[in-house]
């Protein structure tokens, strides 16, 4: 599968993760979110932005705990639990949010 945005085709793997991470842009994020039946709101953008800046520095997605701690700082402690993240991304913050952020899927026993 892939994504078509303004006449350009963006390649993705079987599960909808972009194969070329460098092509990501906010419009593409919206489109990926839409294909996941999610509407982007401020909270979801907050997560996606954090994932991207973390990835920039560490070349990998952050541990859930790192993500929730970072969100506690910016969004308040009530919006920082793993459970809350699942309300934002029902299929899991690590996997679904990474897809929207244009990052590779976390692999392994997760």
């Amino acid at each position: 599968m892939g994504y078509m945005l303004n006449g350009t085709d963006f390649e993705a793997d079987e599960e909808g993760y972009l194969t070329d991470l460098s092509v990501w842009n906010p419009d593409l994020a919206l489109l990926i979110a839409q294909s996941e039946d999610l509407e982007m709101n401020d909270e979801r953008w907050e997560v996606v932005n954090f994932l991207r800046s973390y990835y920039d520095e560490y070349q990998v997605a952050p541990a859930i705990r790192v993500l929730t701690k970072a969100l506690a700082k910016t969004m308040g402690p009530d919006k920082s639990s793993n459970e809350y993240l699942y309300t934002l991304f029902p299929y899991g913050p690590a996997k679904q949010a990474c897809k929207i952020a244009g990052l590779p899927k976390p692999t392994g026993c997760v």
Partner: protein
Amino acid sequence: MADAVNPEAAKPAMPAAAPPKAPTAGATAAAKPAAPKKDYSAYIIAKGQPVPSPTEIPQFKCGAMSDSKPFVAKSEHQTPLGFPGELVDNWQEKAVAKMGDLLGKYRSLQVYMDSCIKCGACTDKCHYFLGTGDPNNMPVARQDLFRKVYRRYFTTAGKWFPKLVGAEDFTEKVLDEWYTYFHQCSQCRRCSVYCPVGIDTAEVSMAAREIMDHVGKGQKYSNEIIGKVFKVGNNLGLPKKAIRSTLDGLEEEIKEETGLDVRLPLDEVGAEIMLVTPSADLFAEPHIQGLIGYAKVFHQAGISWTLSSHASEAANFGMFIGSYENMRNVSLRIREAALELKVKRLVFGECGHAWRVAYSFLNTLAGPFDFLDPRYPIPQHIVEFTVDQINKGNLRFDKSQNDKYRLTFHDSCNVARGSRMGDVEGGQFEFPRQILRATCNHFYDMAPETIKEATFCCGGGGGLLTDDLMDLRIKGAQPRMRAMQQVAQDHGVTHLAAICAICKAQFTKVMPAYGFKMDAILSVHQMVANAIVLDGSIQAKALDQKLAAPQIGNA
């Protein structure tokens, strides 16, 4: 907050714009295969309703799982493991040759092929059969997918009278069946416990996957992960910098909680112990809570330890794909790291199949470990280490910290049936329970036919813990989940503790289908982390004060 909601914040190079909320016209996601929504609502048992037996034999549903196939590995996942990138032209010839090679190398495989007496003892022992009703998931039927090809090419009767002896050509249809049903076996070995002639279906499954890999039909999930271990050092692909940063965060957290400097060292030369743990312990919940537990136990024991970035993975998916070479190459990293860090002891974290590889195969794969201290087990399990500390009276617990949990324990298959712990029979069953009883006031075992050597797989083991097999995973979890539903009704059990990264990740995903919350799965060392009272900690002072204070009612 303006910055926080700005999608450009992470990428300053992009033109600044308000965050879009809806896709622009002309944006489409290319046809996504429309997966029919599965209905699992029948799996939730209402309060007071009888829970069906975990071992209840289902009606046959022929072909029910014939469409279940994991994604096939692409060339970039295959070649780093030494396998062809795609299905080779002469695959049939190659596959038969590889089968001959394996039959010669592993005499056990030949014995398994010849010794089945079709007694039927295994038929209702597989969780995937019980959960799906697909007759091909009866262990004997799964073996027969392999056996019919074996008979055709390696037995006289099969060569001359194939139809009479159930022999079949290795056609593309058969290869397709193999790919489907050998990826519906989690190599948990429950069936082998009941087989009167001792056939181990896991070995047959491994051999089948090895043959498929050798003709270019590998499974993406497992093979991509093994490639990451070779490239970065662990299944998740966590580079050293990310590991250190996560460990720093945990040290801060523990300091805040206890007031103590509990260290989580990485690549520290000269440490006494090297801890090899699944990389999920550095990433996922509840895994990471277990890591906090290990660190606290090491701290209290006063023994120096370290993690290694080179051997930052306990898991060894080389076993799942039946590849000796890949299993060895993953294992060798542990030897290299132990030598480099000049450690004296090797301890493994909570990972089921890693412990089987470590306990049963490590010495022949990557030994001899004659440079380690022979006074300690080589290797040792973290559960064994903690039990030893408990027995020595070195650990103090405040069990009331875990009073919000009513616990049961899930024996992970590779620990239960593929290894042991300590020098007592059944140590692998008793040690984790001893820890839970020491740290938690409410512990109840599930039905005896579902625990210890009869334990049911979580439904995601053996390289099947992948989203493309989610339907299989949910159905395969049914026997374990029914056993848990029983103790939930009978004893008010709320949580399940485990010592395997795969089990923990699997239960997080499948428990909601059975009416439990996703965080109803816990790490065993999470219970330790919650209850342990470290010397000199905030908790120790509070507990001492409480004990010193006059008891209410005595005044």
